[in-house]
């Protein structure tokens, strides 16, 4: 039974994505996505960094690519990709810190590709991409990231990926240095802690939706629409179950 349900969900999602993507491709006007403040803030970060001759700091968290945090980490990488392209084009590549070994090659790849596109691949400063600590030592990771924030001339602090409560230490140091912050995570505890530091927060699914917001491909937008449909279905299922339980006692 479980197999049938899982298989059905996957097939339904794939079919819906294809149908809605076809509609997207044939639509004359682009679909408008719901605005959210963190995404707007991200767009403004690079511009401000270039104006003030500063760099952005992006931390991709501690989510391993071979674990359950893979989707969250990949979404964070898509944010890095866009910011690296904008930053390298203006000769201010973002300082990127990672808290898991598997994130290092992918982050390095994206930043170097962005530098190549901008024609300055040989001029990436030392420490542009840094492995800080292993994912099993969250507070060591937080300590390492705060060291980067303190040492470098940073205008914006972008924390996207998997974080836990150690994010509080990073945000506190960034706040003391009056650095703008954008935070995105899937961990409710990290999000609660981050709420005290900034308004620009990507809550769970908003972080996962960021590739669609950044690239805006028809398939990505279609998958957001599927997500909305699934959300309504899940919501109705929860309500229906609650009413059923209430009625039957």
């Amino acid at each position, binding site marked *: 039974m479980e197999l049938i349900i899982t298989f059905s969900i996957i097939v339904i999602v794939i079919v819906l994505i294809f149908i809605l993507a076809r509609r997207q491709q044939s639509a004359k006007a682009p679909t408008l996505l719901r605005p959210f403040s963190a995404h707007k803030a991200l767009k403004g970060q690079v511009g401000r960094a270039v104006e003030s001759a500063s760099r952005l700091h992006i931390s991709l968290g501690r989510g391993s690519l071979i674990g359950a945090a893979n989707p969250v980490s990949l979404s964070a990488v898509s944010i890095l990709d866009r910011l690296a392209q904008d930053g390298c084009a203006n000769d201010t590549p973002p300082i990127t810190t990672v808290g898991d070994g598997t994130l*290092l090659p992918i982050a390095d790849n994206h930043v170097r590709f962005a530098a190549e596109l901008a024609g300055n691949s040989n001029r990436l400063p030392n420490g542009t991409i840094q492995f800080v600590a292993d994912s099993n030592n969250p*507070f060591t990771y937080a300590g390492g990231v705060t060291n980067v924030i303190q040492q470098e001339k940073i205008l914006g602090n972008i924390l996207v990926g998997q974080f836990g409560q150690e994010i509080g230490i990073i945000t506190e140091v960034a706040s003391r240095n009056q650095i703008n912050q954008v935070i995105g995570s899937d961990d409710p505890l990290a999000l609660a802690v981050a709420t005290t530091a900034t308004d620009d927060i990507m809550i769970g699914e908003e972080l996962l939706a960021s590739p669609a917001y950044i690239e805006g491909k028809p398939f990505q937008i279609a998958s957001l629409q599927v997500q909305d449909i699934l959300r309504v279905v899940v919501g109705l299922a929860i309500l229906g179950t609650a009413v059923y339980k209430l009625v039957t006692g």
Partner: protein
Amino acid sequence: MLRRGLPLAIAVIFGILTLVGLLFGLPEISNLILGWAAFLAGIALFLGVVNLLAVHTSRFLRNRPVGGGNVYSGVLVISWLIVFGLGIADLFGWTNNAMNQAFQWVQVPLEAALASMLAFFLILSGLRMLQGRRTVWTTLFFVTAVLVLFANAFISSPFLPGSLNQLALQFRNLIQNLIVTAGIRGILIGVALGIITLTVRILIGVERPYNK
């Protein structure tokens, strides 16, 4: 063509194989693939250590006086060398479990110290939030946090009457079991739906974050 096509093919094939292994109860397939992935993750961790050393050795040797950053880098490199030396000594039997003992004596207390400071950082951060952003939501956030703190104190206080203890317990349970749990589940359901659609996009080859 090959540069873009090969990683895409590898990702889609191994994604589908892992899914099939999990769906149809074939742990041999998924375990084999996860074993390879864990091996690659081990190599990535080694690269991470090399990166860490390269960045900090370079910073240390350049001797740039930016806020004493080179001193921290020096401490890191020297600490790494000491721990590495202890690991070698353990390996050859010159010392007994020295690397783990160094970890227990230095790393664990330092991490615990940082963790214990978190509560104070959060209070400061909450106060700063209330100063800088006075909205209905920030006020609600702060008031709730303070009330829950007081409720926790009242629950464990032996000096208060039992009825007040009970009231504090009910209030805390209302906040934690109903409002907080509902919020957390809402976030987690959203994350789960986001993960489903993102994973499907990767499986059908539409999303290629690994490929530049």
